[in-house]
């Protein structure tokens, strides 16, 4: 899910003061630390994702909001 979609869904749910920050790149080597990502999937990711993008396949974010 893209950041703007996540923010939009929070606002649509009724939240105010939506903030998304503390962004940290999340790459294939990070994913490989998790048992939920199988070795097969990690191999596929290394093969199909462009090398320049492998260090930042996703972004780890903190999203905050307040119920009015």
């Amino acid at each position, binding site marked *: *899910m*893209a*950041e703007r979609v*996540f923010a939009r*869904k*929070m606002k*649509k*749910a*009724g*939240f105010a003061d939506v903030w*998304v920050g*503390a962004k*940290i790149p*999340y790459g294939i080597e*990070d*994913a490989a*630390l*998790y*048992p*939920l*990502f*199988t070795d*097969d*999937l990690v191999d*596929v*990711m290394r093969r*199909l*994702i462009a090398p320049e*993008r492998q260090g930042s*396949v*996703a*972004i*780890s*974010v*903190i*999203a*905050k*909001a*307040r*119920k*009015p």
Partner: protein
Amino acid sequence: MAHDLLYQHEVKQAVRSAYEKITTGGGEPVARRIYSPEQLSRVPPGAIEWALGVGNPVPHADLAQGETVLDLGSGGGIDTILAAHEVGPEGRAIGIDLLDEMVERAGANAREAGVDAWTEFRRGEMEEIPLPDESVDVVISNGVINLSPRKSRVLAETHRVLKPGGRLCVADLTVEEDLPPEILTSDSAWAG
């Protein structure tokens, strides 16, 4: 659209199945990547072993003594236990998780951490949170909302259980560019 490559029930089953199959979490490599040494000194080894989060929501949640905090998808309990330390015995920490095994595991970890008197874990789904309206001050979660095929429903439920003025603070992954279909249709990718 890429997010339509799997049906909702297929995503849900894939996530459940993946979590049922694993015999350990990310352990110290994941925990050290996410949490501070001071935080890790406050949780038992069993909670570190089952660390599966993608960020560190508790320091961003501005928790105060006496507040009630809900952890959506509490897993082995590491974030719930950290939150319990912040709200203290006058507060309450509640973790919900899809799997009975995780609920039992997290409960044992909370006992070892010494926060069990004001911490509880329940089996439940984040699309149907087993709590009354306006009953919690803060909702946290860590790498969990993205696992739901009904994210808007999860956010609506979160809004329902929060008191007016209550806060949501979640760590999660965002993806700005489409991934190859071979990855998007992988059960493992959805579960991770």
